[in-house]
C-alpha cells in the first residue's frame, strides 16, 4: 500500500485544483481502487500460481497452462489501469503548476517594475503596466486572493482533454478486461499446450473470492467512467449556458451596469468591494425588502434587479468565459445601491443565501477531501 503513496502525493495536488465532480472521482480512485487493490486484492491473488493445480504430473505443464490462462494477472492489469487513468490528471496538474509558476514570475516582474517606477516616479506607465498585468492575470486563470486556479482558456481546454483521455482509457481497460477474461472466472480451466500430453483439467485458486473482487473493480471502473462523463457534461453545459448568456448580454439594453462592473467582479479582492445589490434585496429570511420609499429609487431597483438576474445567469456559467473550479470569495456585481453598509460577515452570509452568489460561496464542508 505504501507504493501508492508515490501516486497519491501527485494526485493530492490535482485534488486541490479540480471541480467538485473531479474531487469525487479522485476520492473514488483513492479509496475504492488503490486502497482495495493494495490491501485486499493483492493478498487474494497472492498464491495464484502456487495454488493453480493441474491434473497432471508432467513437469512444466502447470507453468504453461497458467501462462495460457492468465497472460496478465488481474492485479497487474488493475495497477496499469490505475496508472493510465491517473496520468491525464497529472498532465493537467503539470499545466496548472506551469500556470502558477508563470504567475509567480509575472508577480516578481511586476514588483521589480513597481520598484523601478517608484524610483523614477513614472506613475502613468506603471498604471498601464498594472492594467496589462491584470489582463494577463485574467487570461492566465489565477486568482490571487484565493490562491486557486480558475479554469479558463487553455487551462480549461487541458482539463477537458484530460477528462476525455481518461474516459477513453477507462473504456479501453474495461473492454480489454472483458476481452481477456470475460466477466467471471471459471473454476475449471481445460488446457492443451505442449508439454501437456493431453487436455488437462486445471483448477484456479479461490475463484469465488476473485470473482467478487473482479465484479467490484469492474463496478468501480464503470462508476469512474460515469463520473468522468458527468464532469464532461457539467463543463460542456456550463460553457454552452455561458455562451447563451453572452449572446444575451450582447443585446445592449439589458445590462449596462453589468458590463461596466465585469472587470471589477473578476478582479480579486485587492480592493474593497463596492456595496452589493444583494444587501439591498436580501434579508435574513431571503425575502425581498425594499429600503426605498420613492418611485425613482424603486425604478432603479427594478433595473438593478434585472441586472442582477443577468448576472445570476452568468454566475451559474461562471462569470464570463471561465468556470470556477473552486469556491473562492470574490466581490459580487457592483450596482448602484444606497443600502447602508453591512458588516463584513453579514455580507458573506448574504452571499450564500442569494441566488446570484452561487459561484462565489466559501468552500463548503461537504467538499470531499482525501
Amino acid at each position, binding site marked *: 500500500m505504501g507504493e501508492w503513496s508515490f501516486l497519491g502525493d501527485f494526485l493530492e495536488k490535482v485534488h486541490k485544483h479540480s471541480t467538485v465532480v473531479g474531487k469525487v472521482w479522485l476520492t473514488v480512485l483513492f479509496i475504492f481502487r488503490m486502497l482495495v487493490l493494495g490491501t485486499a486484492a493483492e493478498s487474494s491473488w497472492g498464491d495464484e500460481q502456487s495454488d493453480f493445480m493441474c491434473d497432471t504430473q508432467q513437469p*512444466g505443464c502447470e507453468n504453461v497452462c497458467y501462462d495460457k490462462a492468465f497472460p496478465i494477472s488481474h492485479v*497487474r492489469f488493475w495497477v496499469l489501469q490505475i496508472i493510465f487513468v491517473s496520468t491525464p490528471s497529472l498532465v493537467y496538474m*503539470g499545466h496548472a503548476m506551469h500556470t502558477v509558476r508563470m504567475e509567480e514570475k509575472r508577480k516578481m516582474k511586476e514588483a521589480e517594475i513597481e520598484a523601478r517606477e517608484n524610483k523614477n516616479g513614472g506613475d502613468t506607465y506603471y498604471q498601464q503596466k498594472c492594467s496589462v498585468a491584470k489582463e494577463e492575470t485574467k487570461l492566465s486563470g489565477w486568482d490571487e486572493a484565493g490562491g486557486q486556479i480558475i479554469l479558463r482558456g487553455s487551462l480549461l481546454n487541458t482539463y477537458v482533454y484530460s477528462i476525455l483521455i481518461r474516459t477513453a482509457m477507462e473504456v479501453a481497460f474495461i473492454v480489454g478486461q472483458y476481452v481477456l477474461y470475460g466477466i467471471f472466472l471459471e473454476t475449471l480451466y481445460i488446457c492443451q499446450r505442449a*508439454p501437456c500430453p493431453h487436455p488437462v483439467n486445471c483448477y484456479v485458486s479461490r475463484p469465488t473470492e476473485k470473482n467478487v473482487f473482479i465484479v467490484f473493480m469492474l463496478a468501480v471502473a464503470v462508476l469512474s467512467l460515469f463520473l468522468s462523463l458527468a464532469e464532461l457534461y457539467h463543463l460542456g453545459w456550463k460553457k454552452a449556458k455561458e455562451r447563451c448568456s453572452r449572446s444575451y448580454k450582447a443585446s445592449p439594453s439589458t445590462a449596462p451596469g453589468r458590463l461596466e462592473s465585469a472587470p471589477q467582479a473578476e478582479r480579486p479582492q485587492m480592493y474593497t468591494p463596492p456595496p452589493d445589490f444583494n444587501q439591498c434585496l436580501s434579508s435574513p429570511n431571503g425575502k425581498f425588502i425594499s429600503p426605498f420609499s420613492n418611485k425613482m429609487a424603486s425604478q432603479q431597483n427594478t433595473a438593478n434587479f434585472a441586472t442582477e438576474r443577468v448576472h445570476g445567469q452568468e454566475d451559474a456559467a461562471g462569470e464570463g468565459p471561465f468556470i470556477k473550479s473552486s469556491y473562492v470569495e470574490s466581490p459580487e456585481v457592483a450596482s448602484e445601491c444606497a443600502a447602508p453598509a453591512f458588516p463584513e460577515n453579514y455580507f458573506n452570509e448574504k452571499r450564500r443565501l442569494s441566488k446570484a452568489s452561487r459561484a462565489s460561496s466559501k468552500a463548503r464542508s461537504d467538499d470531499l477531501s482525501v
Partner: protein
Amino acid sequence: MSWAFLRDLLSGVNKYSTGIGRIWVAVVFLFRLLVYVAAAENIWKHEHDEFECNIKQPGCENVCFDHFFPVSHIRFWALQLIMVSTPSLLVVFHVAYRENREKRHNQKLYKNPGKIDGGLLCTYLISLILKTGLEIFFLILFYKLYNGFKIPRLVKCDIKPCPNTVDCYISKPTEKMIFLYFLVATSCLCIILNLSELSYLMFKYSTKCYLKRHVKNQQ
C-alpha cells in the same frame, strides 16, 4: 524494499529542473518506480520456485536457472533505476555547495543559487549526458545478457549435472514480457526526454551567448 529514499531524492531534484526535467521525474516516478514496486516485483517474486525442468535429477534445475538468469530481470531494473537517478544528485550537490558558499562569505554571491547558469549549467548538462549514457548502457547490457528483449516459454538446458538436454519452463513468460516491453519503452522515453532537454538547454544558452556577444560588439 524501500524506495522512499529515491523518491525524496528526486523530489529535491524537481526543484532545480527545467520543464522537461520535471516531466522526466514524473515519468520515472509513475511509469518506472511505481510500476516496478506495485506490479513487476510480484511477478518475479517466486521465479526460482516456479522454474521447472522436466527432470528429477537434483541440482539440474538450479544450474539451469543460474545459467539462463545470471541476474534476475527485476534486480537488473532496480539497479538501472538507481544508477539512472543518481546523476541528478550532482545538481543537488552543486546547488547546496553554492548556498554553502554564500553562507560562508555572508553575502549574496549568486542572484539565485538554484538558477541554471554558469557552473550549474555545466553540472546539469553533465548529469543529463550521464543519465542518457547509463540508460543506453543498461539497455544494451540487457540485450546482450538475455539475447534480445524476449522471455521464452521453454528453454533447453544441458549443463552438468543434467544428464541430457532437458526442457525447462519459465513461469509467467507472457506477463513478464508485457512488463519487459513496458519498462524498455519507458526507458526509451526517458532517453528521448533527456536528449530533448539537452538540445533545448544547449540551444537556449548558445542563443543567449550569441546575443550577448552581438550586443557587446554593437556597443
